[in-house]
Structure formats: structure tokens, C-alpha cells
């Protein structure tokens, strides 16, 4: 069996499961945010359950339109607070304690290797980087799961992605996953598990692994997953407050497809409007002028991303025609960035340094694009209207390329500003 199959089998109380089989699995963590939880709450109330199945396994995180950007958003956030109080949820994170959900849960040791996690948010697939099975579902799925502690799944077929060699300078997990999506397309892994491995992955830090699994959904994948190793152990050891299990894939596990990539051939990569699969080498895009740079999100808002961007922009200024917005993904990252002087580096470069929020990533607030404006962002989606007006454009990149582009006022590679 594959790691995905083994985790699902264990949570369904079965010896074996195979691709295509429909199962009911027990859940370790259930997640919803200020956009999706209000519907979950409404639907949960219709079920007529006495209480939630386990008050310590439900995480409610207001992060999308929080700090509350307008009255309607405030009302939605209020529903989360009230429900959390009423049911005494142990994992409710108020503004000031919250962070972007997919950065916060791994950082706080709330999701762990071997878990089955669902979230009413498509990027719930992020936690596969820890060797967990995690996937995005809808609000109604979460409502039902809050009552029963279970969720139905079709066991996905697995597809293997192997990365050989060592990474070029300024190439990170983001570039590997953008390159991969460019290769297989936005539905190239539809309904499937994307199992990621290889020597380049063994030496990839947890931040890069989280970035890669985060974008599995951008290839249509059900989950991304990496077999846990020493890097995983080092990451979770200090954070975990409960037991966790490392699963591996068997030698004879079945894969519907295996893709191999030679990392020496992968350059800093950019996804052009309006699909993540529309990839080009960053170096080929130097004629694209940039109005706004965003560094943050559940994809690239971790401390390593802050460091990478700061390294490029330190001692320089954001181009006069460009604005730059930096958003650390959690309070802990925010604090760390201050301690290391990164916040100061950004502000001195004339960038905005914001409190944690999803904000501009989904065109919510804190950096919305006007018609005709172009942004380069370390986020994960560049669909029409994603960051504002339907006539605006978003390019996706790693933090170093985004920071270099801020300095040049056009898409640029880090070498150009060094």
C-alpha cells in the first residue's frame, strides 16, 4: 500500500484499502475559517446533534477577512467566536493569536504525522508535508464531521513525483511545484494523491515541503504527501503534544503514474495569468512591469520565506512605481521576523509589513488590485480576479523573485539586484 492508503486504512479500521474504495474514516482534526465556518455552523445546527464530537479536534480560525475588514466580515467572525464559546472549542484562535490556518496548525503541532485531517479550505492539503493525509472539503462536510468525527472518502489513486539532483541557487520548493503543475496541468492529478519524493526532497526543509504540498490542489490533487523522515521528526518533536505515527509506502505500492524531474534543469519559475500551470522561467519575463508585490500566504509566508525575501531586498528600495506588501503568516513568524531584524529590513526598503492575514491572496483586503494592475505574489492562485478587479493580473513566484521584482519594478531574478 501507499502511505495515503495506509493512513486511510488505519483510520477506517481496516487492514487494507485500495484505490477507488469508499470508506468512512475517523478524523484527527477538522478545520474551518471565517468564510467557510458560518455555513458549517448553520448546517451543524440543522443536524440536531447534542454537541460536537470532540471539542479539542475542531479548529476555527478567522484568517481570511480578519482582522475584520467590514461589518459583514465581522458578523461572520462573530459566528465563529460564539459557536466556539458555546461549544468550548479548544482550538479557536482569536485575532492576535491567529495566523493563516495552514501555517498555524503545523507550527503549533496541532496536525501531526499519520493524522487524517479535513478542512473547509482547499489548501488543507498542506499538511501532507508532515506525512499526514489531509484534504479540503466543503462546509457541509465539516458540519457533518463536527457531529460524527468521521468523513467519507474515496481512496485516491496515487501518482509519484520524484525529484533528482540538487537545487539551483534561488530555486525552492515553490519552483519545484510550479514547474510540476506546468508539466501536468491544473487537472493533471485530478482526484489523485500526489506522493512527493527524491533526493532533492530529502534535503528540502519543512518550509519548502509545506509549500509543495500546499499546491497539490492546484494540480487537482486530493492530497499531497511526503513520507516522513529526519526532517519531519526534527520539526514535529518539539511541537507535538500527543502521539504521532510515521507511515511509509511499501516497495510494491501501486502508482498510476510516476514523473521524474532533474532539478538541475529547474530555474526560478513564474506562473503567468490566469492559471498556475501557465509557467515560464522568471528570467524570460523581464518585460512585465509590476505594480504590486505580495510576500505571504499559506504557500510562502513562513519565516524561511521572510528571510529569503529580506536577503534580496536588504539595503535596497522598492521601485518608485511599485508597492510591496509583506505578510508573515502567523504571530510567531511575525515576532521572529522582528527579532531577526527582517521587519526593519522590509520597512526600510519602503515595504508594508502587516499583521497575519490571508488579505490580498484572495482579493479580500490589504492590497487589492485595480483594473489593469499587475502583481507578482508568492501565493498559490492567479485566476481571473483573484487579487481584485477581473481586469488585473497575478504572477506567482517564490519570495526571492518577488523581492527582486519589487526592487526592479518589473519581473526580475535575484541576480539582477545583487
Amino acid at each position, binding site marked *: 500500500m501507499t502511505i495515503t492508503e495506509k493512513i486511510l486504512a488505519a483510520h477506517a479500521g481496516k487492514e487494507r484499502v485500495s484505490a477507488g474504495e469508499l470508506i468512512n474514516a475517523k478524523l484527527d482534526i477538522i478545520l474551518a475559517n471565517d468564510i*467557510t465556518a458560518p*455555513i458549517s455552523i448553520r448546517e451543524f445546527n440543522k*443536524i440536531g446533534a447534542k454537541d460536537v464530537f470532540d471539542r479539542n479536534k475542531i479548529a476555527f480560525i478567522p484568517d481570511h477577512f480578519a482582522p475584520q475588514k467590514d461589518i459583514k466580515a465581522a458578523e461572520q467572525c462573530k459566528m465563529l467566536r460564539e459557536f466556539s464559546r458555546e461549544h468550548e472549542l479548544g482550538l479557536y484562535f482569536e485575532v492576535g493569536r491567529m495566523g493563516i490556518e495552514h501555517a498555524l496548525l503545523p507550527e503549533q503541532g496541532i496536525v501531526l504525522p499519520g493524522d487524517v485531517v479535513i478542512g473547509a479550505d482547499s489548501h488543507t492539503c498542506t499538511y501532507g508535508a508532515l506525512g499526514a493525509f489531509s484534504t479540503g472539503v*466543503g462546509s457541509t462536510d465539516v458540519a457533518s464531521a463536527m457531529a460524527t468525527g468521521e468523513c*467519507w472518502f474515496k481512496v485516491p489513486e496515487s501518482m509519484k513525483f520524484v525529484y533528482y539532483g540538487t537545487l539551483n541557487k534561488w530555486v525552492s520548493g515553490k519552483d519545484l511545484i510550479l514547474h510540476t503543475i506546468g508539466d501536468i496541468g491544473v487537472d493533471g492529478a*485530478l482526484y489523485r494523491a500526489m506522493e512527493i519524493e527524491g533526493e532533492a526532497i530529502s534535503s528540502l526543509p519543512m518550509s519548502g515541503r509545506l509549500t509543495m504540498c500546499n499546491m497539490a490542489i492546484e494540480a487537482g490533487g486530493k492530497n499531497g504527501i511526503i513520507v516522513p523522515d529526519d526532517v519531519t521528526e526534527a520539526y514535529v518533536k518539539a511541537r507535538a503534544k500527543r502521539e504521532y505515527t510515521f507511515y511509509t509506502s511499501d516497495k510494491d505500492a501501486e502508482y498510476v503514474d510516476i514523473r521524474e524531474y532533474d532539478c538541475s534543469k529547474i530555474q526560478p519559475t513564474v506562473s503567468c495569468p490566469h492559471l498556475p500551470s501557465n509557467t515560464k522561467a522568471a528570467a524570460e519575463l523581464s518585460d512585465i512591469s509590476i505594480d504590486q508585490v505580495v510576500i505571504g500566504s499559506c504557500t510562502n509566508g513562513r519565516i524561511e520565506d521572510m528571510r529569503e525575501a529580506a536577503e534580496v531586498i536588504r539595503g535596497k528600495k522598492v521601485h518608485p512605481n511599485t508597492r510591496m506588501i509583506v505578510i508573515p503568516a502567523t504571530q510567531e513568524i511575525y515576532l521572529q521576523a522582528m527579532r531577526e531584524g527582517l521587519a526593519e529590513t522590509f520597512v526600510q526598503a519602503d515595504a508594508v509589513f502587516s499583521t497575519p492575514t490571508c488579505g490580498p491572496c484572495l482579493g479580500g483586503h490589504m492590497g*487589492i488590485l485595480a483594473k489593469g494592475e499587475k502583481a507578482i505574489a508568492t501565493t498559490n*492562485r492567479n*485566476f*481571473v480576479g483573484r487579487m481584485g478587479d477581473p481586469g488585473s493580473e497575478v504572477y506567482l513566484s517564490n519570495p526571492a523573485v518577488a523581492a527582486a521584482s519589487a526592487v526592479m519594478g518589473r519581473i526580475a531574478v535575484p541576480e539582477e539586484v545583487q
Partner: protein
Amino acid sequence: MILKGKVWKFGDNIDTDAIIPARYLNTSDPDELAKHVMEDADKDFPDKVKKGDLIVAESNFGCGSSREHAPIAIKAAGIQAVVAKSFARIFYRNSFNIGLPIFESDEASEKIAEGDEIEVDADNGTIKNLTKNEEYTAKPIPPFMQELIAAGGLIEWTKKRIKAS
């Protein structure tokens, strides 16, 4: 159940940001969401669409976010069903959970044009094109999904399970 109506045609990879842009997600009121349905794919769509119409699209319909607001907006706009070559998995799941009928058919997606009058038999997946006088078949709906539909969606299904246990 027979779903008969006029078709609006869309292409590949219609994402949930096109179906219901995030800027409207500070509410989850179905009628509010319906006012902006498909707006970023076709800005006049909310005005043009009539109750009882159907959507026919190509591959990977509903890709992107997990927002249930997407099938809710479609349903609240009075669209009876969506036919596509394939659906993104969370959208697929959400549609069954909330009771928006969806059908997968390559042939229907290729042959149906905008403005065609079609008739979908939700029970057996037969799609009749009344304008072109053709007939296509959708992929069968998996047994568990049929169970969900029969129960009246996931919430009703869960209610029954809780009562039984």
C-alpha cells in the same frame, strides 16, 4: 426527475473565483451570492441567466477553492444542473452534499452549444438535446452518491446515521 432548460456554455477550468469571486464572500446568504454568479467568467451572466437554465462546461469545472458558496450561488440563481467533462473534486463533493445535480459527459460537453434546449433525466443520466435532436449519456452516479441524493443531501444523511447509532 427531468431537468429541462436552456444552456449557457463555458470552457475549461472554470474556477470558483470565477463562479463566485472572493470579494463577495463576506456573506453566505444564497440570494446575495446568486447576484454575482459566474460574474468573473461573464460579467453580464447574473442579469442574463433565468431560473431553470442549465450550465454546460468543459473540463475541471469548479477548480480552486473549497468554497461551498460556488454550488450554492449556482443553485440559488435557479440553475437546475451543471454538465461538464469533469469536475474538480471538492466542487463535485459539495454539489452532492448540497443537492446541486451535476453530470459528467464528454459527448454532451462537446456537442451542446450555447442556447440549445436540453432535457436531463437525472435518474438515468440521459441528456437529450432538443435543439439538435441528439442524445448523450452521462457517467453513472456512484452508489454512495445516489444514497446521498436519496437521503436529501449530507445533512439529512448524517441525521439518520446519528439517530441510528
